[in-house]
């Protein structure tokens, strides 16, 4: 299987997976950091329980989307229990592919004038 078809086979991502990958994009976070970030970015709509998160982490590691990272130099604590996670290259590809898919979907919605506050599509005014 080519890498592209591997990426495609994982789509669509669940809501939860997408958010976890999204907060890890370009940064390293520990478990609680992921929970906090997701909570803040979704305006409190998504408050992951510990169990939920780690079941997801296991699945994402098994699928090769994320990996354990070196603790960043500016880590706020030296707590050895805190392990940091980052996206793998493959994980980055999957996140990008899913984002494109979602963007395309949003584009479709926009054509139907469903996205409030958006610029009207060409040809309509």
């Amino acid at each position, binding site marked *: 299987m080519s890498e592209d078809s591997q990426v495609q*086979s994982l*789509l669509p991502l669940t809501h939860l997976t997408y958010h976890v990958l999204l907060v890890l994009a370009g940064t390293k976070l520990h478990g*609680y950091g992921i929970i906090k970030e997701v909570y803040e970015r979704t305006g409190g709509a998504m408050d992951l329980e*510990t*169990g939920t998160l780690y079941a997801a982490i296991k699945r994402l590691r098994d*699928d090769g989307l994320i990996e354990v990272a070196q603790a960043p130099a500016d880590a706020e604590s030296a707590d050895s229990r805190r392990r940091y996670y980052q996206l793998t290259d493959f994980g980055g590809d999957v996140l990008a592919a899913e984002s494109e898919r979602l963007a395309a979907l949003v584009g479709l919605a926009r054509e139907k004038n469903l996205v409030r506050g958006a610029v009207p599509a060409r040809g309509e005014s």
Partner: protein
Amino acid sequence: MTAQPRGLRFYRRLLHLFPAAFRAEYADEMVGTFEARYTHAMSRPRATRLGFWAREFVALFRAAWQVRGKRPPRRRANAPTRKKNGTMNLLLQDVRIALRGLRKAPTFTLVAIVTLGLGIGANTAIFSVVHGVLLTPLGFDHPEELVTIWGEDQNYGQLPIATGDFTDIREMSTTIADFSARYSIPVGLTGDEGESEEVRVQWATANYFTLLGIDPALGRTFEEDEPASVVLSHGLWQRRYGGDETVIGRRIRVGGQPHTVVGVLPAGVNPNVVSLRSRREENDMWRLLPQQWLQNPDRINAWLRIVGRLEPGTTVAQAQEEMSALAVHLAEVAQDNAHVDFRLHVTPMLDDLVTKAKPMLLVLMGAVTFVLLIACFNVANLLLVRGQSRSHEMAVRSALGGGRRQLARQLVVESTILGVLGGAAGVGLAAWGIQVLLALRPTNLPRLEAVALDLPVLGFAFAGSMVAVILFGVVPAIRASRTDLMGALTERGTSRDKGHQRISRALIVSEVALSLVLLVGTGLLLRSFAELRQIRPGFDTDHILTVSVSESGRAENREEAQVFFRNLERELSALPGVEALGFSNRIPLGGGLYGGPWATEAIRARNETEPEGAIRYVSPDYFEAMGTRLLAGRFFKDNEDWEYAIVDEKLAEMAWPGENPIGKRIWTGALGRGGDWSEVVGLVEHQRHGSLSEDYNETVFFPHLNQLFPGTQQYIAIRAGVEPEALVRSVRETLRYIDPEATLARVRSMEELVGNALAPTRFALILIALFAGVAVLLAAVGLYGVISYSVSQRTREIGIRLAFGAERGTILRLVLGQGFVLTAAGVALGIVGAVGLTRVISSMLVGVEPTDPMTFTVVAALLVAIGVLGSYMPARRALRVDPTEALRAE
């Protein structure tokens, strides 16, 4: 706010839900994350610890399922859909389907859960008492080694031991490592700041506490050479001294004598062991039973209560063998009346304590098992009917490839869920039921402090639920899985239907039979209770107040003690509301024994063994105060002494059958008295002393004056023209006025004493009646259900009959007849069962035979009536069948 270390430990333990490999990888991290999340979550407004835990909990379970789910790493778009083949998954699926099914039939589910909850709850509540009273070991060191030793002779089935015999037993025994002897009496407690009160003091050998294995919570216990040191019970220490630790070393007066407090016993261990007749005393204080008392060679006066600890590795049977041989030896040495047919009995302490309670508890456990059986049968019936109405669904599923085993498993899962939910409802009911049971305060049950809804009891509830599941779930499951495909799909399952109805009917017949047994038990106890209330115990049972008064020890001699009691009598008699009052050394139903040998001239002449009777020392007005009737002669007069005696009818019948006892002479060997003869001046009716239902020992009464010593305790019976309780205050004030140090205790109205005497019967009656009521209700509901179903199945038949001109009365008879046959079969079966089973309650019955024909007849008629009533409602529905409607369905 950070999570408690306990909470974190608990969370870590929960992680065991995950596979070991997952735990090794993530457990530490997850605990850390959990802690951080907790801290953060609690800082939000409106956050509750419970809500947080609940969410984390549920998420953890779901995550564990997911991780354990053996899912392929990620579902591929072109891969076949996930195959659920793990047993866990199958089961989970079954549970989901079953829950959905139960939710869709809320009435069925609710009725089944309530029915099971009643059965399991009642069983759990009664088992908690059985467990606490009969099964929980006593809270002493190696309680299985502790035994009590009682004597027996020709007159008494159970006797304490005389000091002379005890010395020999102690020296000669090789099977019993250590003995302790003890004896309790009530005395006045004074000399501290508190008001004088009566307390129960136990005289015990110095090894009493080490033998039981009780360490004092405060201070120490007394030594061999400390006759004036006392140890307080935890209860007295709390109640009277407010838990003050400086009580150690305090000087108090016990029975007028100075003593020093040296120790306080711990809470939570009941330091009392069994006294006579399975009774456990509640002692407030312990003091030394001096060695010199034990050295008394007397073998006649048996007063020592003996407890022993077996040599390690020795059995009770070996100890019993040794004691039996020792009893023979003692009888040979003694050669007296107290050792005729003399025996010694070794009893494990727990057995001794629960002897009286055991039969009743086992009967209640049996009764409550019947209720559970009936509940199970009812639910089985519900499931059968439900299986019937779902036969179409089952057939479709079977036709679509659902295996029989799969269908059966589905039903078993459904039953198990019902069982678990019923069990949970039962535990809730039991928690409440135990409170009610304890509130009924069955005075004849020892060790109620050990009754609780603890782990073994919960285990029992769980086991009971599972047994119930097997009872009600399996047969319907087997039947339903044998689906007749064609029949069910074409809605013509007639042969199958017959089989189902046969089972239903058998269940109903059993239910009626079990209900009948319980109802007969209730009826017999009800008659016994009525009988007990009817019995004239030899005295009046209302408007009498009884109290115990102890002289403070201030009197120097017998004359001064007499002055105290005479003053008291005069002052109390003058109180408004007091109609008569009398003194006695014992009060009927008030507990305690007091007796001695007696003889007539004829008995002496024939040189026979002297009978052992009860002896009472009473004041002249005692009989009048008690309402005890004079049958011949006269009562005592003031200042009369022991040259006169009054006997009761029982003694008169034994001593001088058919003769007038007045003017006859009687001898007694009462304590402190030589061999004088007294003249019988009066004959009174027999007073029942131990219980309302049993005759007591024959009794001889003497004037009480010579029995009044410094420190003497006497009972006073006060006949009140007002409510007895209204007199208590003025009696207390009068006593304080005469001597502030004298103690008043055991303030009880005769009605209260009678109530206590009725308590065991009332307790059993209330519970069995309750169980019988539930049983009959369930059986009636079951019968109603079965008849209703049968009517609905026969709608077409009834329609045809009506179309052909059948009288409505015929139809009514048809349906009622069906109910009648079922009920009558159950009644017949139940009567056979009841004849065999009511014997187990014969010890609780008074004035009625276990096979009392009247009770059986009334109960049978009642059940048949209920049965007919239960089928009348469905029968009326049958009458409303519209022939054209019924036929159109064809």
